[in-house]
């Protein structure tokens, strides 16, 4: 099998770190992209020791498309299959957003338009290679607008729809696009939020993503329990749903 290298966007996130570790342990390369290059260097060394044939750090900011060029330049000389995993995102609380609506722009950029702009930029590179996987990390919050975090949810929903279209386009050229919808995961983002339903460990979600990518899943709920849960939630008529607080 040809070697695979993952471009990991948002590599300082908890799930991304678990994912990079798992991918490294099975011999995939990792190109860690994010803002905190000092922290990512520590992850890169860890990945190299665990078996990644390539483990490098590259500065990337979803809010600054000028940072994209460096990644494209770097991957040019990387042989084998190139895949992308998008972990970029931010989740201000709905209360913070209600108090300061200007936060909406950043939330939508981090969760949707920034990653979408990057993926659209790199899409021709992957198409030309005719292989690889794009794993976009969305959220169960994108399946329905809820009172608790509907701006974040709306951004993720936009990203889901974008990924669906991208899948439609890239599949024709041998590049698979997977939409991942994690539920609540035990990360820095959810720490201190109180008791959360079906809280999953990042290692579990990362393993699901890697396996889903290998098996070319289109949409992946992780953990799987969220698939029936969200199916039910999506089926509730809006007339009823608007009165609920879930």
């Amino acid at each position, binding site marked *: 099998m040809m070697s695979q290298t993952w471009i990991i966007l948002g590599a300082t996130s908890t799930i991304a770190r678990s994912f990079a570790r798992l991918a490294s342990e099975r011999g995939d390369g990792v190109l860690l992209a994010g803002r905190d290059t000092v922290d990512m260097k520590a992850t890169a060394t860890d990945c190299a*020791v665990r078996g990644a044939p390539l483990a490098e750090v590259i500065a990337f900011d979803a809010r600054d498309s000028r940072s994209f060029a460096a990644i494209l330049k770097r991957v040019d000389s990387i042989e084998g299959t190139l895949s992308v995993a998008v972990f970029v995102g931010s989740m201000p609380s709905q209360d913070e957003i209600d108090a300061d609506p200007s936060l909406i722009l950043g939330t939508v950029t981090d969760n949707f338009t920034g990653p979408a702009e990057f993926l659209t930029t790199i899409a021709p590179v992957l198409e030309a290679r005719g292989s690889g996987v794009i794993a976009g990390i969305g959220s169960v919050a994108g399946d329905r607008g809820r009172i608790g975090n509907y701006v974040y949810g709306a951004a993720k929903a936009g990203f889901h729809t974008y990924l669906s279209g991208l899948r439609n386009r890239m599949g024709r050229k041998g590049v698979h696009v997977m939409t991942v919808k994690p539920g609540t995961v035990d990360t820095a983002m959810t*720490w201190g939020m109180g008791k959360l339903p079906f809280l999953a460990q990042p290692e579990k979600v990362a393993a699901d993503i890697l396996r889903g990518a290998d098996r070319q899943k289109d949409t992946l709920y992780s953990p799987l329990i969220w698939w029936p849960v969200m199916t039910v939630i999506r089926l509730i008529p809006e007339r009823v749903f608007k009165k609920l607080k879930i």
Partner: protein
Amino acid sequence: MTWKTTDYTGWGRVHSATGQLARPERTTALAALVKATPAPALGMRRSYGDACLNDGGRMIDMTRLDRVLDFDPQTGALHVEAGAQIGQLLKIFSPKGWLPPVMPGTGLATVGGAIAMDVHGKNHHGAGSFGVHVTEITLMTPNGPKVLTLKKNMTLYKATIGGLGQTGPIVSARLQMLRAKGDVMIVTERRVEGWDEFLALLDASEATYTVGWIDATARGDQLGRGILEEAETGAGLVPAAKRGKRIPVDAPGFALAPSVIRMFNAAYWRRVPDKGRTVVKPIDDFFFPLDKVHDWNRLYGKTGFHQFQCVVPIEAADALRAMLERIAGSGLASPLAVLKRMGAGRAGYMSFPMEGYTLAVDFPNRSAAARLIGELEAATVDAGGRIYLAKDALAWPETVRGMYADFSAWSKAVKSADPHGHYITDLVRRLKLRAA
């Protein structure tokens, strides 16, 4: 959100705490925490008693800072974040021919915890404690990271190793890994008929890894019977251990009734043939046999359990025998009991090891067991020995201070490193270790 209010316990589940925990994922986040709200660090909470608790206060969970920061495959020099688990290091490095230099009985212990308790392993008689192999420690102070070495910062360094976390959170450490021939263990198991034979075998053992399982329920002529395990690393191929089981619920009290334990121990002892045997085991099977059963502490039910562990000097072996007699006579011991010869190797002022014999016995948490442990502690003092603070949940201040000859040096160094007592834990409070 930075802080999360949590109920948590030590491994023995006798003591518990309610307090706020933070779990930084980046060094910068840890630095910000220690600057604004310094609090003691905790790892995987494998200390049995209250060393990893701060009831009503705050603690910093280090488990997400667990990366390898540097490794030299030529020399085996490793730089690793404090939250990394010893078992993870074993998994990463044993295929490359390197082992953590010292491994405690659980692979789930973190590097930071291994330093703060200066843990020992089955190779203590030769290799010394964990801290002996540490070459550099980075502490997080309110003014940022501070790098310590034995040469440049002797007192603070020795107050940190085995120092119960009282000098502040450890961010990372450099340690010297141990060359290994391979990642399988060649283990020779021998039945031991009684106490005198056990000590003689332990004294004579030339193996790198030596440990004794002891039947703490056997009395009379059979007192001190057990199984001696001697092991070396080797190259070869053995199937990996089966996936671990989990204890899903707290066991009922009768699961550990004395008669059940006596029968179990007798059968366990006979498991090894009369003439002994040599077997080949996966490396983690040998070092961390109990880790295969997740949450095995739940076997003791919801009231939890104690582990009593002491070490006594060689010349006090008879006192240790008397202690075992008392334990066997009580009928309170669980099957988990270990006897080992210790060397002199230790690296901190408050390190547990001393040249001698160490005995560790688990007891379900009952009032009779607490009384017995109190007697055993007194006997340890009389024998000139020590109890292990990573295990202790019951001792009194007067008992402990006299056991640690360098207590005042430690106390002074800690006072200067943490004048406001930010890093005080429940164990330190109970034993009045900072009340000098």
